[in-house]
């Protein structure tokens, strides 16, 4: 396991796309860091640069303080799990697992032992003789993970490994990956665009947008104090309400919504999570325009003039469409952002 440092990493593809723009990131030895961001923000590019599959246009990649920029992918001692698993279709599961070991020149007996051990760990023992085409999606995923851990690499790289699985299996695999990381303690970079994975898997989350890092921190911190409007909208489900308005004399106004704010006068964006809005007598008047009953919670979409707010209530609520309510966002749970830069406005 290694400490991974990225300094000033930029990547411009031939054709001019700037996939990464001066990214600095440090992953502690043994840490599980989740890279999250929308499609096309450069997550895979970053991972491939760490793996040595793509050459950065600028910047340095260091493992334990030593630059690996000149090293081929195979010499970096990293393992990668791909979104489409990339198992070798003509090899049995056992051969797939043994392939990196064979290339590393591990002796046959030792190879056997380690393949058996890995298969045991991942519950693949019964499947060793099968070809990838004879496996389910979840099993293929497990083999891909097995092929990564079998040679005990310094760094693990995962590129959206669960995105092809159904929701239930995804939940299970999340748990397994967490347990696996706890057990092996290998430095891990994990790419996803699923914010549930971002929240639950890693000890830290790094939010990328358009090739730039917007925020790095532990998941709760990122959830509680998003550093930018984009992060606020991206992390959390259902997503945070973001309302553009104006601050005047310490009051934020948007539609019929009036809220006290400490932000300086001028255009301002309010962020408030659906769970942080209460229904109360002293709130702003709103009309319910849509109700979504999810079983464990109910989501109400309300109109305050032209402004739309989603609120989430625990359990089953009898509110119907067209009803009028008074809404009160909890004052201590409000976030303010600059509409221009998207940066958080400190209050």
């Amino acid at each position, binding site marked *: 396991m290694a400490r991974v440092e990225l300094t000033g990493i930029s990547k411009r593809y031939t054709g001019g796309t700037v996939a990464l723009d001066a990214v600095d990131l440090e992953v502690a030895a043994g840490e599980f860091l989740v890279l999250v961001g929308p499609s096309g923000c450069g997550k895979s590019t970053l991972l491939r640069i760490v*793996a040595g599959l793509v050459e950065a246009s600028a910047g340095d990649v260091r493992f334990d303080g030593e630059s690996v920029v000149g090293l081929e992918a195979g*010499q970096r001692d*990293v393992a990668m799990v791909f979104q489409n698993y*990339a198992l*070798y279709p003509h090899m049995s599961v056992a051969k797939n697992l043994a*392939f990196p070991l064979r*290339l590393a020149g591990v002796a046959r007996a030792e190879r056997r032992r380690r393949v058996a051990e890995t298969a045991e760990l991942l519950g693949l023992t019964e499947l060793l003789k099968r070809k990838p085409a004879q496996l389910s999606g979840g099993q293929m995923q497990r083999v891909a993970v097995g*092929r990564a851990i079998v040679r005990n690499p310094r760094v693990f790289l995962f590129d959206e490994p669960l995105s092809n699985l159904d929701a239930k299996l995804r939940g299970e695999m999340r748990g397994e990956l967490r347990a696996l990381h706890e057990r092996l303690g290998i430095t891990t970079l994990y790419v996803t665009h699923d914010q549930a994975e971002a929240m639950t898997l890693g000890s830290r989350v790094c939010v990328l947008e358009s090739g730039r890092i917007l925020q790095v921190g532990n998941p709760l911190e990122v959830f509680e104090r998003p550093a930018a409007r984009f992060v606020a909208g991206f992390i959390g489900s259902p997503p945070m309400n973001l309302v553009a308005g104006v601050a005047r004399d310490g009051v934020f106004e948007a539609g019929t919504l009036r809220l006290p704010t400490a932000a300086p006068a001028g255009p301002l964006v309010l962020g408030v999570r659906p769970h942080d809005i209460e229904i109360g007598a002293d709130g702003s008047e709103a009309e319910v325009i849509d109700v979504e009953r999810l079983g464990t919670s109910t989501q109400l979409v309300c109109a305050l003039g032209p402004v739309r707010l989603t609120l989430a209530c625990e359990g089953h609520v009898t509110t119907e469409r067209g009803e009028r309510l008074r809404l009160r966002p909890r004052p201590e749970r409000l976030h303010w952002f600059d509409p221009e830069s998207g940066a958080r406005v400190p209050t």
Partner: protein
Amino acid sequence: MSATTGRRIALVAAGLVFAVPLLYMIEVSLHAEGHGLSESPLALGGAVHFENYARALERMGDFRRLLFNTVLVTVLSIVGQLACCSLAGFAFARLEFRGRDGLFLLVVATMMLPDHVTAIPRFLLFRWMGAVDTYYPLILPTVLGGAPFFIFLFRQYFLSLPSELSEAARVDGASPLRAYWSVFLPLARPMLATVAIFTFLATWNDFWAPLIYLSSPEKRTLTLALAGFHQTYNTAVEHMMAAATVVVAPCILVYFFTQRVFLRGVRVAATKG
């Protein structure tokens, strides 16, 4: 008459166009010497003369030698073709190097050159190398990627495999050559079979290159011997047909047993070309 009946009749008619000469060849080869063209078909009675075959082989010269030469040239061409075209196709599909796409365009462009245009420069080149009357001119052009079309086929095939496969191999520590050998080549089995069959048919039946380059009698291939037959024994049509039947039999057998692969190859060529 339904559309399928019409189509069947058309297919049978087209089939006959190709089958009749073949059947006629075999038919003539079984007649008594001197009677192949004059007598009524064997099916209407008459003796079948299998001994024509023995006589024909005898008259072709050292048949074993001819067969050996032909098999040697064919096998080396196939092996060379497979190795070279798959390797070049792999490089064009999966390696990144300066000038790759331009080079590939150049390779594809040579497909436009008819063989007969390059025949004379090629001959001069081989004469300069002192390789006339050896097998090099028959084998080397295929080994050195003389079939840009197959390089193209392999490239398209490798491009159709997910790029993560080569990335996974790289991360697992495989060199490009190792990735080619352990991952891509095994996956290209259908392509390999197709190219092997095409190359077999082309080389086995080739008359042009042996005619240009080979002069020593002991180096001749079957097709050359067959032509020589024509000049020496131009009256013995029955024996000539027997010899021709023997020479084309392997092609017909190979085609018969590998129809599926063959057709798939034609289809790939049609959809990707």
